[in-house]
């Protein structure tokens, strides 16, 4: 190893703090890869029935996040699991990047709207529309999620 390493001492010092707000793990350039990986992960990788909503007992945890969100044959219980999981991730600093968790959150609300014609959020229409518009403006979401957001906006307009 080089004996004359240059220390970025401030970054080093962040390792001392458990809750240092500057200690960001993921970078924005990685959000696309992180979202794709999360969408392809099975629910039971990160969601454990004992810690989830009551309806989770009936939810097929072997599905991937993508299947739950984009498959019209999905179940409401699974969608609710994803919504709860993503909401939890939005409030924890060390986990999914906030933006990636927020994509999953709005996508789950959209999936319930589009596939089930159900409102699973207490957010009002304006807030939901703002959320879907934010999601559609992201350059790093893939086409199936983008299409889900478009359909969600259309469904909101129709109601």
């Amino acid at each position, binding site marked *: *190893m080089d*004996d*004359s*390493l*240059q*220390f*970025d*001492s*401030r*970054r*080093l*010092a*962040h*390792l*001392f*703090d*458990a809750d240092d707000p500057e*200690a960001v*793990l*993921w*970078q924005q350039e*990685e959000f696309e*890869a*992180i979202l794709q*990986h*999360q969408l392809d*992960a*099975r629910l039971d*990788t*990160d969601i454990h029935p004992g810690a989830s909503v009551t309806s989770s007992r009936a939810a097929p945890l072997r599905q991937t996040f993508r299947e739950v969100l984009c498959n019209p044959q999905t179940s409401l219980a699974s969608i609710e699991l994803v919504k709860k999981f993503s909401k939890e*991730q939005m409030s924890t600093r*060390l*986990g*999914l990047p906030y933006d*990636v968790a927020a994509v999953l959150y709005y996508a789950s609300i959209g999936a319930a709207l589009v596939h089930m014609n159900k409102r699973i959020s207490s957010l009002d229409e304006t807030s939901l529309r703002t959320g879907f518009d934010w999601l559609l403006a992201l350059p790093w979401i893939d086409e199936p999620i983008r299409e889900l957001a478009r359909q969600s906006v259309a469904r909101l307009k129709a109601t």
Partner: protein
Amino acid sequence: MGETGRHSSEANSATDWSMVDHAAHFDSPEGREALNALLARYVPAMRAHLRFKRRIDQDLAEDLVQGFVSDKILARNLLAYADRKRGRFRNLLLTALDRYAYSALRSRAHKQASQTTSWDDAVQPASAEPVTSDVFDEAWALEVWAEALRRTKSHCAAGGRADLWGVFEARALRPAIEDRAPLPYTELVERYGFLSPVQAANAFNTAKQLFQRILKSVVAEYIKEDDEIVGELSDLKRVLAFSGGTLRTLGEGVLDS
């Protein structure tokens, strides 16, 4: 420590003096143990002081520190004559080390007239430049940090959790130490087989918490009181954050080449 850490460092000096008092009686088992602990704590920083503050090359600095320990601390029991009224132990130690090094190098130069290495060439006499503890403190902070990292790495390896160390090293240590970009997420997954980003983040968090726990245990080996440990951890962080960012590593063996 720097100015910001002065208060806590002064508090810690009481702990230093207690250890010094015990170590001065190194002919007893307890004294020997205290002396070993004292040397384990200060030798790396003394070495760093000669290398980085006095610009003495690595091998010579090593020889001088070993000679100082052998001639002054062991043979003449310097610790028994250390006067706590004269201030912080570490500053007294550095002043004594400087004088020893000055004398040793001058003697060496006289014996080898053709040799260019001399105290005057390499350093300023101790009397001309008061010993400051900045470099000592930086070296000390890095040594504590490096020891915690070495133990964290060993702990991960012993527990069969190379992924914990790997993600910690790839996402935090190497970017901080080597000023390189973090290992891309996709490569992280390929290397360690995380099933989801949450798993990767959890591994990082677990490794960071492990490091923090081990760091605290390292500090607890030379500071006994909980409130002083908290102060020392705070000082270590401040010293690192304001060290100027350029130090030769004392943590060799932490990162693989």
